[in-house]
């Protein structure tokens, strides 16, 4: 169909947000799928990469690459500088007080597991960890494992039908035995934004620490960990337009200092004898082994790219696209939005009366549209809403209203096919 194969006209409602230029920075966005322009609406799953990130990674491998922290030779020193510069970029991006508070991991999941296996090691029977019904499996399973290993009590903040958390119930769950509250900043399945600043204050009032799963929020809004006053904040590089294979654990310095290392190996030690090992200082103590070097450099480039545009402006553009999507998709006959909390962004989850999400995902792909269909690694959310699955369209800095229109038209075609 030549009309749908024509290039899309991308515009932004945000002043000076040059979405066409931004889209040109992401080479993959110019490709076609089944002969149609790619409409990538799966950024919550993983974000596409700007040329600046691709270049930073290949330039490192082509020009400077060596292992970090371990060589006196020029290449190792150059790579170490780039690696540590990336850490500083992450620090500034989330406004941590010190770069010693930024631990590089393999991903958001690895960051949560690090806390569960290190901070968690000091917990035992009688201690309580609170998570929420909105969590991704990554912020459920490590705590269940801790519960089973150490006899910790695991409590779950219930969720309202609209996908917001029941904050009254949260207040009731907090006790002086609560050691940790681990909640998501933004639901990957429904897009709900969780008021973590208020929740952190409540946690602190009973002496508990607060871990924020920022895997979904990090790419959509400016983050200031000091303002949020969370004790841990974790995210994955690949959702922040950076490479896969790298994640970040922000932790308050005194906490990270007190925590035992979760893994042992090279790079995390000062001295090793068979009798005794003296651990390195922060953050190396928590970074055993050769770290994700090129991935860190790529993540640094992604952060430079985003800061160059401005997270405020990215957030404003995405808020516009999200509002437009909710409105435009609701006009599709038979479509039900799933997750209608007032504070929501960048994710629209829905079902169609005529077809299973799996069918919808398969058919809109024929129109070049990439969405996710399924439980989105958040089965408890689906159980709570009594749904087997939803279709999820998720947006990023490069998503335009025109793409939402393509999705809506593709859904109308699906309806016709099932009529």
């Amino acid at each position, binding site marked *: 169909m030549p009309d749908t194969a024509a290039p899309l006209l991308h515009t932004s409602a945000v002043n000076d947000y040059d979405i066409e230029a931004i889209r040109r920075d992401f080479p993959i966005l110019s490709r076609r799928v089944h002969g149609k322009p790619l409409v990538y609406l799966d950024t919550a799953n993983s974000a596409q990469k700007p040329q600046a990130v691709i270049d930073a990674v290949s330039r490192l491998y082509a020009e400077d690459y060596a292992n970090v922290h371990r060589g006196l030779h020029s290449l190792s020193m150059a790579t170490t500088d780039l690696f540590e510069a990336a850490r500083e970029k992450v620090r500034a991006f989330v406004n941590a007080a010190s770069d010693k508070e930024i631990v590089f991991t393999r991903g958001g999941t690895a960051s949560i597991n690090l806390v569960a296996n290190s901070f968690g090691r000091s917990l035992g029977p009688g201690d309580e960890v609170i998570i929420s019904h909105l969590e991704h499996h990554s912020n459920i399973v490590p705590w269940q494992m801790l519960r089973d290993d150490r006899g910790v009590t695991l409590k779950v903040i219930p969720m309202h039908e609209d996908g917001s958390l029941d904050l009254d119930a949260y207040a009731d769950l907090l006790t002086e035995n609560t050691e940790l509250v681990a909640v998501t900043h933004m639901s990957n399945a429904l897009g709900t934004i969780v008021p973590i600043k208020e929740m952190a204050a409540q946690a602190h009032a009973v002496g508990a620490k607060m871990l924020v799963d920022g895997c979904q929020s990090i790419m959509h809004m400016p983050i200031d960990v000091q303002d949020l006053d969370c004790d841990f904040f974790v995210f994955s590089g690949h959702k922040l337009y950076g490479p896969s294979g790298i994640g970040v654990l922000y932790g308050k310095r005194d906490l990270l200092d007190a925590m035992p290392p979760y893994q042992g190996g090279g790079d995390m030690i000062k001295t090793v004898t068979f009798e005794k090992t003296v651990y390195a200082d922060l953050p190396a103590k928590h970074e055993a082994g050769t770290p994700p070097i090129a991935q860190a450099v790529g993540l640094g480039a992604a952060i430079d790219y985003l800061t160059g545009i401005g997270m405020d402006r990215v957030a404003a553009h995405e808020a516009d696209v999200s509002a437009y999507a909710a409105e435009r998709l609701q006009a599709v006959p038979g479509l039900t939005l799933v997750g209608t909390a007032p504070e929501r962004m960048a994710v629209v989850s829905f079902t169609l009366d005529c077809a299973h999400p799996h069918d919808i995902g398969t058919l809109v792909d*024929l129109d070049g549209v990439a969405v996710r269909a399924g439980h989105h690694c958040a089965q408890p959310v689906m159980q709570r809403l009594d749904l087997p*699955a939803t279709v999820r369209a998720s947006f990023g800095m490069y998503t335009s209203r025109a793409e939402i229109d393509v999705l809506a038209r593709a859904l109308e075609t699906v309806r016709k096919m*099932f009529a």
Partner: protein
Amino acid sequence: MTETQPAAPPETTIDETMDDLVDDLAFFDDWQDKYQQIIHMGRALPAFPEPWKTAEHEVHGCMARVWMKGRWQDDRLRLYATSNAIIVSGLIAMLLKVYDNRTAEEILSHPPTFIERIGMDSHFSQQRSTGLAAMKNAIFEIARQGPADGSQGMGTGSQAPGAGNREPGAEEVGRAE
């Protein structure tokens, strides 16, 4: 459950059936039309009794849910399957057209080449998502076990005694499963 498949051996060979499937879909130029056809096939799939939708009969490895049950009629394997997604049900309908009511030997000597010939492999190369591979493996696994042990499930052999002779009547299956 309505028996729509003939109890007598199929009139066409597996190879002929696969050729027919390929021809039927080759008739449509547009992928949307091909899918429309697959949706029709999915809708025409005989109903799968609700009581059979148990963990034992669930085929894992698909993003949509799929249930499959095999039952030996002498040396022929009768297959029953369904999915909660219609396109996946359409793929199941194709697999059943090819493999239902065949002997173990026929099944095991005929990998589902029609998928590639239809051009489905480019659409479904993410085999995990449609679970085509998982469904094919489930069928082949039942066939490999053969009629000898009287098993009828997903090859688990953990059926209630005598289950192998049971007709798929709704009251009966309601009991043990």
